[in-house]
């Protein structure tokens, strides 16, 4: 691995890195008193570690890894409810592969599958709908999860099922939205964040206006970023320049993919099928107002919570995390992944205890995978 291979434009990367070092210095940030920038999206977290960007940037700049990995923030109670539905007679549960190993209180989906439940990995909710067509005698449920990037896919699949009259198909909806947890983090009295790198593909769907409150009400900069290492570095520089200049604005570094107003077809499909829940539970962060979506009553025939009588308000909710798990502290930036006593011991990607170790987009899994393999060594 070397620098020239990693960056398509190494000269530009060196220039941006030099500017980041200069502006960090101008802000007066130091290793002892760093400037804290949160990358919200799990894909960005993965890229930062893969390219070692946190090691290439100065010690006065600290990345805080945000709650933007949908698998990681899925509460155990929702896994329990998913397992409960999967274990019903006649049900085929379908899910993205990422969700299979997320621990529940009783078991994960992979354990439920080993115990006899029919659980199948699919690439797309469209494949779950196709499975329902091929098995009219079975109830096919899709475990719908993800942020705004994947919400339109299940909304459009439900609309297709409704148009086709496919009634043996339903969605167990766990879709969540980015802005409410950001507001919750900003309202936290221990909050230390100075600015944000905004998610690229979530913004491709919702546009950049939903972040206005971050700049307007909290006085913090946010720059929506692409996924190439140079995109990320440029976005970090834009955030730092805002901090140095005393500005707080919503900027769009990824305008080649992100229209300011988002994707109108996606937004319309989501508004047709979904409505916000009063609140939704986030692993490590607790209940957050209006942060999760549910299926509107007009589409109740495709809502697995209604069909199987499972879900919010149907039973006591156990919110406790596994003993010793500190995912919540990692997600709010209070500790680093390797500061958790379970890291790499009781909690590894093969046998995750906490959700941040499950997905490649989780901060703990990224630390574990790339901890000893850094770009700086090749410089």
């Amino acid at each position, binding site marked *: 691995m070397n620098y020239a291979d990693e960056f398509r434009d190494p000269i530009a990367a060196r220039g941006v890195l030099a500017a980041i070092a200069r502006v960090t210095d101008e802000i007066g940030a130091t290793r002892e008193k760093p400037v804290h920038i949160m990358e919200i999206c799990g894909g960005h977290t993965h890229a930062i570690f893969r390219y070692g960007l946190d090691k290439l940037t100065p010690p006065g700049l600290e990345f805080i890894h945000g709650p933007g990995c949908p698998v990681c923030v899925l509460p155990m109670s929702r896994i329990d409810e998913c397992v409960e539905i999967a274990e019903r007679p006649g049900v085929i549960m379908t899910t993205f592969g990422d969700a299979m190993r997320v621990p529940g209180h009783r078991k994960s989906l992979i354990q439920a599958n080993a115990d006899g439940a029919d659980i199948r990995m699919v*690439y*797309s*909710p469209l494949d779950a709908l196709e499975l329902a067509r091929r098995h009219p005698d079975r109830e096919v449920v899709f475990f719908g999860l*993800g942020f705004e990037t994947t919400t339109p896919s299940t909304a459009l699949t439900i609309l*297709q099922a409704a148009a086709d009259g496919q009634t043996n198909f339903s969605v167990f909806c766990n879709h969540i939205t980015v802005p409410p947890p950001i507001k919750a983090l900003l309202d936290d009295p221990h909050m230390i964040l100075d600015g944000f790198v905004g998610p690229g*593909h*979530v913004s491709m769907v919702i546009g950049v206006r939903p972040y206005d409150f971050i700049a307007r009400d909290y006085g913090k900069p946010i720059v929506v970023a692409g996924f*190439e290492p140079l995109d990320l570095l440029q976005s970090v520089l834009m955030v730092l320049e805002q901090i140095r200049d005393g500005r707080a604005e919503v900027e769009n570094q990824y305008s080649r993919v992100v229209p300011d107003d988002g994707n109108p077809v996606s937004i319309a499909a989501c508004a047709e099928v979904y409505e916000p829940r009063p609140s939704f539970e986030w692993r490590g962060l607790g209940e957050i107002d209006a942060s999760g979506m549910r299926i509107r009553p007009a589409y109740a025939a495709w809502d697995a919570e209604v069909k199987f009588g499972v879900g919010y308000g149907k039973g006591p909710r156990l919110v406790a995390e596994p003993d010793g798990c500190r995912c919540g502290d990692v997600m709010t930036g209070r500790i680093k992944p390797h500061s958790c006593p379970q890291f790499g011991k009781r909690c590894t990607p093969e046998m995750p205890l906490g959700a941040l170790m499950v997905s490649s987009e989780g901060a703990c899994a990224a630390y574990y995978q790339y901890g000893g393999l850094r770009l700086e060594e090749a410089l």
Partner: protein
Amino acid sequence: MCLGIPGRIVEITDARRKLATVEVMGVRRQVNVACILKDEPIEALIGTWSLIHVGFAMSRINEEEAALTLDVLRQLGEAQAEIEAMKASERMLAS
């Protein structure tokens, strides 16, 4: 899941359901193109590059952007995972 993958639309398979075949790193699969369809006949999409997220074309991109994005996804190991998930899903449906 959230990163998606670039693909090129090669054929319209079901105009009513807005379904098309895309080619992603040499692998073909059906995707829904409703989100990138503007005021135009659906056939106009043939040859268009798009970011594909879990079976849905979500954003038109140009060929250069597609190539750059694929490079990053390969380096992150996400491109291989995405293709594997597509193939596994197809095998599951065929079984």
